[in-house]
């Protein structure tokens, strides 16, 4: 009996000493961390893509809690998650629609013929050092996939010399926009189904020569639009998605098929 009591007492003594040590440590080395940081981080997607400009989701959460802001909103999280974050921080958040990357070019091999045989490195930035464009159109997509490599969500692929974007997978993080040396990618709200698939700012005749579906700046779309949502600047039409109602009048009016109506069916699968 006695031999079990002594170890018991010794252990109890150890426990007491350790417990007081723990108590001292917990008071002395206490670092306050807002528990909401963890909660916010939980709500974020956790992809650490950097699309918001912070060094990852944790950094975003710290900023959100410490500065009490959800600006810029996480480009990847859906509206629901961002609202949850905002509720947590007692903030009002306006519901922003999901944005998707869109390629403003349809210069496939068929539409814009190749004017050279490029032998260099398969990288858009590297190719730009050798030639502005591999196709007849100076503004066309190079089709070497720098944006595809920049995409963390496997939402882009190369097809017929241009990039095709899977809008379901696209999270709108915007990393591809910076990866494109020709600034051919932009963000549009996913509900905007009408797209001007051209970036050529040359005069109509030159643009037409360069690509079959080039926007020639004929203004027909501008006239056809009842919402005043489409405008031609520098011989190139552009759509104001705030006003566009997806009516499709401009698509019908366009003589070169440079405007495209994108329905759900054009989603491609990799």
């Amino acid at each position, binding site marked *: 009996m006695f031999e079990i009591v002594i170890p018991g007492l010794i252990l109890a003594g150890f426990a007491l000493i350790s417990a007081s040590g723990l108590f001292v440590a917990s008071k002395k080395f206490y670092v306050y961390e807002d528990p909401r940081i963890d909660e916010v981080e939980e709500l974020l997607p956790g992809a650490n893509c950097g699309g918001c400009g912070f060094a990852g989701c944790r950094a975003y959460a710290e900023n959100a809690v410490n500065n009490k802001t959800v600006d810029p909103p996480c480009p990847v999280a859906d509206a629901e998650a961002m609202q949850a974050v905002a509720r947590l921080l007692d903030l009002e958040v306006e519901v922003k629609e999901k944005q998707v990357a869109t390629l403003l070019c349809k210069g496939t091999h068929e539409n814009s013929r190749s004017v050279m045989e490029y032998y260099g490195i398969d990288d858009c930035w*590297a190719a730009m050092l050798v030639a*502005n464009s591999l196709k007849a159109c*100076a503004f066309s997509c190079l089709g070497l996939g720098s944006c595809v490599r920049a995409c963390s969500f496997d939402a882009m692929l190369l097809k017929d010399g241009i990039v095709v974007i899977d809008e379901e997978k696209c999270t709108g993080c915007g990393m591809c926009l910076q990866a494109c040396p020709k600034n051919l990618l932009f963000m549009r709200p996913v509900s905007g189904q009408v797209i001007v698939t051209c970036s050529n700012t040359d005069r109509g005749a030159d643009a037409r020569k360069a690509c079959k579906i080039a926007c020639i700046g004929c203004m027909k779309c501008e006239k056809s639009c009842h919402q005043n949502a489409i405008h031609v600047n520098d011989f190139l039409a552009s759509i104001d998605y705030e006003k566009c109602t997806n009516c499709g009048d401009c698509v019908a009016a366009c003589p070169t098929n440079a405007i495209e109506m994108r329905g759900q069916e054009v989603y491609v699968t990799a």
Partner: protein
Amino acid sequence: MLQLRTFKRGGIYPPHEKLSADAKIIFGEIPGNLLIPVNQHIGRPLKITVKKGDAVKRGDLLAESTGFISSNVHSPVDGKVLKIFRFPLLGGLIREVIQIQPTEPGKSFKEVLESDPYFDIDIGSLTPEAIRKRIEEAGIVGMGGAGFPTHVKLSPPPEKKIDALIINGAECEPYITADHRVMVERSSEIIKGIKILQRLFENVPVYIGIEENKPDALKILDELVSKDGDILIVPLKAKYPQGGEKQLIKAVLNREVPSKGLPMDVGVVVQNVATVLAVYDAFYYNRPLTERVVTVSGNVVNQPGNILLPVGTPVSYVVKKFEIDVQKVRLLIAGGPMMGRTSHSFESPVTKTTSALLFFDNRVFAERRENPCLRCGSCLRVCPMGLDVALYTQMIKADKIAPEAKDHIQDCIECGSCAFVCPADRRLVQWMRLGKTIIRREN
């Protein structure tokens, strides 16, 4: 024979292929159509001073400089401005060009040149400021390839003491003989041009560096300067890239330009012989820089030669003049094969910096795929700048450039020695240029 000078580190010995070394400079006719690129220099973009429909005279300003580091562009012929639009230049970049329709197409260009009045100026009466101003007005840029405005190069800040002027007659690139022919045929003019430049720096000693594979140029210039104490002909070993500024200074004076530095940091100014000739023309004929000697060569050219062309002449004119079979051409290079740039349009115009037009068929250019780097170290061995090319390109490919490598990557002179010897056919120069782009984007 005295010891030939050269730079020590790196360098390669590509075959010379100077096919047109003995071909006299010929003069063509005014082509039916000129496309004059607006920006032909490194520096601030120009402002176009003409508009569609304007009539222009030979020597009229087409676009004027907008700052110190900028250089005017003039019309080489009388004519009318047809159109201002964007067009692919030699080298594949699409830029703004001014299309001019000459009033007298087909007129011999030699006649045009001979009709320019000659002024017998007294060099001694010119002040350095007047010289710099005239050079600036004439739109003279470095004609060796880079196109840096010459007046800027000739205006070092006062704290940089210039004690040597080097005239670059090395012409180390294979095929190109334009400078070589200029040195042989216009040697006395070059000496006069040098005298003008010498005035700028209190009559500093002048060294003319010429590679040994141009014995006739060496001989002619040597005879001309034998009575001149302060001009020295420096025969150089034929080694690439001897014509690179930093390498030439190392070879001639054994001075090492510091990393990220300029020749003026070691008290040197370097000028290309063609530029010196342009300076001579600007003073004695009051000509702006509107024409230059271009070597036409390559394995599909039957009669390789050198031709004086007005700036803006489309390549198609040269093709016709030299009776080149375009069906055979697969590769068109503006400049030499080592540093020149490929082009895809036969309508692209000659610019102030086009030293050669080379036409090749597919015999010289079977498809070469990039293979994995073997780390064989050839690129390090031949790099005249002593860069660890193999390591840097791996970093650039992975988009993870080490901080200590950034300065070195920017030091690359893009001479192409590394890719020339690479057994794995890696596009090392393109990778290095991509690296520079990435670094510039980060800053």
